[in-house]
């Protein structure tokens, strides 16, 4: 069921990135460009149709200082409630798991429990504590995640982690839903005389009017 990362970027092209001018250089590698980060995206059988990657993982080799900004929509999805709780009790994190296809929103206690099971299973594979793992979901509202397929894909997901450009690109594809392009960028700049890298990936095409706090 699961495919490896190198099919990912053949699914959708990369978006043009319009970076503002500034004292930085654009470099490849997206979320995996900064020191200590790895990423991957695979097809885990979560999407309603097609075989575009739909499961992404970003990890950090060390405890990373964590921050988050979340929807202020009071009908908040399970991963939003979970991440806010984790960020309240911890200043650091080691991983971000993202699934595309089901938003796990308006899914009640079962939806929340489904996510907890996936986090606990991933924590074992990564040899991390569950509270070191943050979660993002996107897709159809009201549907629970395809937990069986997700759990089955975790070993392949963890084994395909890499700090390569392909790893970052495949993760950027795996988080998309109705997007026509993947969104990934990284820059390098001198801060305090030291070379610092900042990278990221994003998704979004419809239901877009963020008011995050």
């Amino acid at each position, binding site marked *: 069921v699961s495919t490896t990362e190198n099919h990912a970027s053949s699914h959708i092209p990369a978006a043009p990135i319009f970076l503002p001018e500034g004292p930085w250089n654009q470099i490849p590698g997206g979320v995996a460009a900064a020191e200590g980060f790895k990423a991957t995206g695979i097809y885990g059988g979560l999407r309603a149709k097609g075989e575009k990657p739909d499961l992404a993982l970003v990890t950090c080799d060390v405890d990373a200082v964590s921050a988050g900004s*979340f929807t*202020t929509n009071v009908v908040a999805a399970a991963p939003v409630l979970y991440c806010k709780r984790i960020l309240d009790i911890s200043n650091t994190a080691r991983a971000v798991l993202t699934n595309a296809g089901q938003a796990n929103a308006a899914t009640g206690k079962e939806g929340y429990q489904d996510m907890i099971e996936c986090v606990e299973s991933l924590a074992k594979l990564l040899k991390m504590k569950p509270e070191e793992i943050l979660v993002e979901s996107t897709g159809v509202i009201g549907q629970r995640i395809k937990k069986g397929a997700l759990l089955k894909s975790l070993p392949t997901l963890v084994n395909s982690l890499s700090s390569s450009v392909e790893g970052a690109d495949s993760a950027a594809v795996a988080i998309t839903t109705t997007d026509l392009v993947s969104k990934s960028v990284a820059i390098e700049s001198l801060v305090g005389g030291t070379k610092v890298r900042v990278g990221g990936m994003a998704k979004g095409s419809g239901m877009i009017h963020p008011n995050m706090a």
Partner: protein
Amino acid sequence: TMLGVITTDARVTSDVWRKMVQVAVNRSFNQITVDGDTSTNDTVIALASGLSGLDCISSLDSDEGIKLQACLDAVMQGLAKSIAWDGEGATCLVEVSVSGANSEAEAAKVARSVASSSLAAIYGRDPNWGRIAAAAGYSGVSFHQDLLRVELGDILLMDGGEPQSFDRRGRDAASSYLRKAGESHDTVRIQISVGNGPGRGQAWGCDLSYDYVKINAEYTT
């Protein structure tokens, strides 16, 4: 839904990082709009490994703090603009820049109000300054309408609250500016000045097309 994962190898204290990230989100993702629908799942997670070797940043106002904030703003704006560029059914990115407001927050509010307006006129390639002025007017930010200046690209549509005399050539030039942007999925730039204040802000959206309705009619829950 928009999701974001941001990573850096800068070293920064937890409270400074959390403040920095929210500032950058307010200057980027919270300034985009495609359809006015705020999702149940919108999330940005940002992780700092500290492995670059940089000394730990413990103040937003330090030189290093200001530089890291600028880098964070740039990455998030680059990603946010690509989301608006890829809006469902979009044929062009709409970038709204506002100046002359009393504060950055007020300028951002006017900009987002204009970007959020269903400027179907953009899809119709109609340089409709009236819709732009109206969207600025209902933003909730007060300003003197006789100070309002609106430019589309480098074509002045309104100045000092007065519509510019618009001969056929001028109107055709403005329409072809919009058409070219739509044909090459480029950026339509709307510049608005609302007064003489120091506040500047930007927002990004896209034009509203028939395809948006079609895509969403088929995306059933």
